[in-house]
């Protein structure tokens, strides 16, 4: 399957982040056409017909979301771009933010017009220094050129977009936690319902979409809904998805492919396969939250239907593990990540994540028992009752690994495993002060 550049169409251009470059190839023409000639209802109709779904991983229909926001009589309404990309193995938004900020800003303008909003927010994680600079500069250029501000493109439509930085919290990628962060609060999630479409930023109707989702909007309006739908591979898959490859693979990087491409194509054709002499052991299709899949499942289609294999499509950050990687240790890494990033707001997640870490530490040290494996399962079950998606997904990579590679867990328990920890002292972080210097 050939690479199709829709979202990433501008990344290769010289100085692609400048307004001048973007406009040279018809940039902002769609936003101008929409604001001048189309009704908001028509815009929502096109996006709905294109079957665009949220690229942040939830795959919620974008057109429907906009319709809900527009349908809420409360004002003002808000448009929020979620650029708090923190899922391990995912970096597709970073390229868009750094190299094509105008691409998704155009999408935001169209969205704001569709839901009749006059204030937008872009939320970018604090670690993305260059992305923040480029977006700030892009917003300044837009205000100067009359693309943002009062009277956009000479019409009476008005829109301001405010840039906000995160400060190192994965949980702020969760939509309601992001709203709290935007409002200058701790990034704890909020109870749903009410959903953001009725009660988002400042408790007003808000459409929050991923950067990549916004980047799809202008091309959809340019080429039409049918064109976009046909880009996907399969009945239910519309458009492309930017996949990020990392881990034990020859070529890392971004590959924009039809939604529904197989993992085999992504890893072998685009990623160039595994390093010499290594074979595929497992892969995670969508960042840390996604359950691990075995080498035998490499022919799965990468689209939301992947749920039948006990994993999720997620952000499209595919992490490849070769035969030298330890599945138990990879589960431990994921557990550590969620332990660190749990916001501590609800008990199942706050207690469950460190419990998983402790048990996996014991198993890795050769001190685990078979009962511990059952304990992992029962802790996982109780974490399903967590308040937000973080806790509800945090146990799945561990239990997924346990389900698919139970033999390996058992062999660790029997202390007969062929894998040895690469750096045992790093594991002992709870006893840091007692352990000798490396």
């Amino acid at each position, binding site marked *: 399957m050939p690479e199709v550049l829709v979202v990433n169409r501008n990344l290769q251009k010289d100085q692609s982040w400048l307004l001048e470059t973007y406009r040279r190839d018809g940039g902002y023409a769609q936003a101008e056409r929409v604001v001048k000639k189309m009704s908001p209802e028509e815009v929502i109709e096109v996006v709905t017909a294109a079957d665009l779904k949220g690229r942040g991983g939830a795959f919620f229909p974008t057109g429907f979301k906009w319709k809900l926001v527009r349908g809420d009589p409360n004002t003002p309404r808000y448009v929020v771009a979620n650029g708090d990309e923190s899922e391990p193995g995912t970096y597709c938004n970073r390229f868009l933010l750094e190299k094509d900020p105008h691409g998704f800003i155009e999408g935001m303008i169209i969205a704001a017009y569709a839901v009749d909003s006059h204030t937008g927010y872009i939320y970018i994680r604090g670690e993305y220094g260059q992305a923040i600079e480029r977006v700030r500069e892009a917003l300044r250029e837009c205000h100067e050129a009359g693309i943002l501000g009062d009277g956009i493109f000479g019409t009476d439509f008005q829109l301001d977009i405010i840039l906000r930085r995160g400060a190192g919290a994965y949980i702020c990628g969760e939509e309601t936690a992001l709203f709290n962060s935007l409002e200058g609060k701790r990034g704890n999630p909020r109870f749903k319902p009410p959903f953001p479409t009725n009660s988002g930023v400042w408790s007003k109707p808000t459409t929050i979409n991923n950067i990549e989702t916004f980047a799809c909007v202008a091309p959809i309006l340019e080429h039409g809904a049918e064109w976009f739908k046909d880009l996907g591979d399969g009945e239910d898959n519309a458009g492309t998805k930017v996949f990020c490859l990392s881990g034990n693979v020859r070529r890392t990087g971004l590959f924009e492919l039809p939604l529904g491409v197989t993992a085999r194509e992504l890893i072998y054709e685009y990623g160039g396969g595994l390093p010499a002499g290594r074979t595929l052991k497992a892969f995670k299709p969508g960042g840390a939250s996604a359950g691990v899949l075995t080498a035998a499942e490499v022919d799965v289609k990468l689209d939301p239907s992947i749920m039948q294999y006990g994993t999720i499509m997620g952000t499209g950050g595919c992490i490849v593990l070769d035969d030298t990687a330890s599945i138990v240790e990879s589960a431990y890494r994921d557990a550590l990540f969620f332990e660190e990033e749990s916001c501590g707001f609800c008990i199942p997640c706050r207690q469950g994540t460190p419990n998983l870490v402790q048990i996996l530490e014991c198993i890795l040290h050769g001190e685990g028992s078979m009962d511990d494996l059952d304990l992992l399962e029962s802790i996982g079950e109780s974490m399903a009752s967590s308040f937000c998606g973080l806790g509800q997904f945090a146990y799945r990579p561990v239990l997924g690994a346990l389900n698919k590679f139970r033999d390996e867990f058992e062999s660790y328990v029997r202390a007969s495993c062929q894998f040895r920890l690469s*750096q045992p002292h790093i594991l002992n972080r709870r006893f840091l002060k007692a352990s000798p210097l490396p």
Partner: protein
Amino acid sequence: MTNSVTDKKATTVDLPAAAIEDLRTGIQPFKEDPGSLLEALYVAQDCFGYVPREAIEVISEELGYPEAHVYGVVTFYTMFYTEPQATHILRICRDLSCHVNGAPKVIAAAEKKLGIHSGQCTEDREFKIEQVSCLGQCEQQPALLDNLAVHGSMTPARVVELIESLRGEGS
């Protein structure tokens, strides 16, 4: 632990009055921008290198938040610090993609070179090592940030080189 100071140790320093004034001026625009507390905290951190008690007082006074609220926000986000930090914070990714590509060896090399554990500062407060969650730089795994500057495809040798070159700049 004689050759290092932990970030837990409370340090009392007299804050320069000029920096407090800089902070007060720097956060004036945020009075008109509801919800911009994080941006105000970034200004404070630029002034002092961390968010000291006095900065929390100034921000709470100027922007009208209770001090407890500001403190709550400072301690929620990992990029805000309540204690003095090092000039160079080396944030090394420890998540899966970087891990399987040798991040543990990079961390070990940095710790050995600086004689500190992760989470600690060197005595001269030039360097701090942090093991952090995914930095979103996975195409150049293993990755590290020196403050916000990205250094990708690290190896033990390259991290030692980086530390040496950063030290050279300082002196």
